[in-house]
């Protein structure tokens, strides 16, 4: 066991865990933050995506020891009131079906938007390739990302 200190959703966090334990399970089982989902455990589906120092990362293959001193953002910390442009756009476009993949989709999309203000379809393909949705919401995800970019630029209230 090792004590690991990091910043979680803006607050200091300390956990005592086996160093190899993936961040995903620390979040879900140790800390009770269940918004980050388990889908494959092998970095193949994107359901477990969180931000570490602003980068989208698959938490299922991220040992907790590597998180020491870093800043972790999960879906719970993206905004207090679902007001992040991505979340607003997701609501406007009615993206989720079963909803299970959506935390990961939203975190991946939020990282894309942070880095690319006006993502093209090709940017979206590349960024979102690793996020599976079995309900097939890909096309609404695409339009919601474009819409979120508009919201972020302040280009108009909701339609």
């Amino acid at each position, binding site marked *: 066991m090792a004590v690991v200190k990091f910043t979680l959703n803006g607050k200091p966090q300390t956990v005592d865990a086996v160093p190899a334990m993936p961040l995903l399970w620390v979040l879900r089982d140790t800390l009770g933050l269940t*918004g980050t*989902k388990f889908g494959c455990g092998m970095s193949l589906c994107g359901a477990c995506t969180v931000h570490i120092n602003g980068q989208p990362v698959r938490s299922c293959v991220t040992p907790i020891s590597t998180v020491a001193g870093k800043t972790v953002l999960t879906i719970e910390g993206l905004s207090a009131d679902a007001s992040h442009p991505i979340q607003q756009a997701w609501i406007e476009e*009615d993206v989720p079906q*079963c909803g299970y993949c959506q935390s990961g989709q939203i975190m991946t999309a939020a990282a894309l938007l942070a880095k690319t203000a006006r993502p093209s379809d090709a940017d979206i*393909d590349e960024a979102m390739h690793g996020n599976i949705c079995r*309900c097939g919401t890909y096309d609404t995800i695409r339009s919601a990302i474009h819409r979120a970019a508009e919201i972020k630029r302040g280009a108009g209230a909701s339609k």
Partner: protein
Amino acid sequence: MSIPVNRRTFLKTGAATAGGLLIGFYLPERNELAAAATDSKLNAYVHVGSDDFVTLFIHKAEMGQGTVTSLSMLLAEELECDWNKIRTEFPGVSPEYGPYQGVVGSQSIRTSWEPLRRAGATAREMLVEAAAQRWGIDKSRCRAESSEVINTATNARLSYGSLSEVAAKLPRPTAVALKDPSQFRLIGKPTKRLDTHDKVNGRAAFGIDVRVPGMLHAVVERCPVFGGKVAGFDASKSKAIPGVKDVVAISSGVAVIAENTWAAMEGRRVLKVQWDEGAVASISSAGISKDFAEHSQQPGAVARKTGDAAASLAGASKKIEAVYETPFLAHAPMEPLNCVAHVRPDGCEVWASTQGQTAARDIAAKITGLAPEKVQVNTRFMGGGFGRRARSDYVGEAVEVSKALGRPVQLTWSREDDLQQDFYRPAAYARLTAGLDAEGWPVAFSARLICPPFGGLNNGVARTGVEGVVDMLYAIPNILVDYHALDPGIPVSYWRSVGYSQNTFFAESFLDELAAAGGKDPVELRRRLLSNAPRLRTALELAADKAGWGKPLAPGKGRGISVVNNIGSFTAQVAEVSINRGKLRVDRVVCAVDCGYAVNPAGIEQQIRSGIVFGLSAALKGGITIDRGRVQQQNFHQYDVLRMEEMPAIEVHIVPSRNAPGGIGEAGTPGIAPAVANAIFAATGKRVRRLPIRSEDLA
């Protein structure tokens, strides 16, 4: 008001429903007729609270199809309540909820169409009556609107909340009039889902998110060979893993229980189990295929006989024969299977995202020896079901582990477990023969279908093995369909659209072969053969028209069409594909659907798209193969699904209809594989006769 349930037992499962107006009603199950409804058998409730909120308690679980939204629309239409003040709860299963609870076969909206509107109208009438009494006027002078009753003479208003207590004491009206569809203000309008907000902030509670005080986490090592049994195990290394609490044998294998899921998985990784692999250890996909092919030479059990196909074939001007084959498929819902169970000496509580609440209760009762009414099943949001969650094997496992430990336990399946221990869409094989007359029109059609059966046999025929061919609406004078129930021992079950998922591929691809052999346009041939099936023909014509059927395409591109009638809906799809240096891309899909009265057009469109993506994943990538009784695919790298960049542009067109609503969750799935295969033929002249589509089948 007659509510023959113990109100307290019921209410404890729900929101703050103390007081207020509670109306119980009955939603028919499966194919039961609405007429079977009686007051003594209630399975759903509407509650109007003193806080103005309307709560719909239903047992239909939400797995992503937007059922909750559509059902709420039916209720709100007649209740005249404010759309923002309606919410839904899934009460735990309890014996009062009728003999069968579950969501399979896309029947939710089909069975709820009348009773939900009636329940809404009943509640509205009682609230209006309560207002009329308060004002001392006749209720004909009152009108209900947006959760208020309005006095039409004075314009005075009383909120539903302020009337609910009084309304609850009034007799329930015996007959209520329902609106004519022309008066609908909600039904038929594209309506956003009610559950979106919690699905963008991580708060929606799926089964896997259930946390119970004192809960441990378990995973199970199962025999890699279907039907194998534990011969012995050595848990010493597992128990040395930090966090591992216990290792116990259960009927499906060996469970490792730990403080967290990961420790349980680590403990399982070093567990040593000796298996008694059993008979299935000699089974492989190649052998199954060979067996299918051999049986296809012999007549099977007759599923449909129209005219005399054999005689007609013998006299036909042209005879066409083909063999088609499809693989086993896994469901792979995004949320891996899981269940929390807490077995106590006097009762058992289960939390699960399940499509089969009653089955979950029954298996828990059986394992614990408790009476079914001592078992409480709490339903949570499902991260996809697609048929897999109608099974309750994983519920039973959680109950067994909790029983052994006497503590609440969450059991989680890994993705590997999910792909390797599924109840699969069966592999299937079809030998198809048809005869054309001198003008090239089909006069005889015979299909020999072979696949593992499930859902029961009737005179040797499993409905799940023949649907999609046996119920084709084509007016071909001589049709013979027969079937072999061949069971190699691989577990099989319902998979989104069930038998249609393979049989529509067989039938609609082969029909395309007949069009080509007879020199007919594929749309023209179908239009002629659907002369007695106006709803399907209209869908066909709409899809063809919107897709620009017949308009020239660039070289390397092709269009293909398919039709299907399943779950009370009629669907046609046109796929447009391009083949570029041996690589297939599905560019565009145009789908037309007649699913009866379109309660929520937005929801229908979403479900059709979803069904198409699901079917396309299978057509392009899906395949579970067996080697020595073991599934060869382990995770998404070997069982890939459609990704963002592969998504075609999908257009959905809804045929206006006044018929009772059909199902929609499975309507889009069957038609996409044949539409794509037919488009490949149009582009390349290559006929795809097996799935998934492989690059070597394109050139």
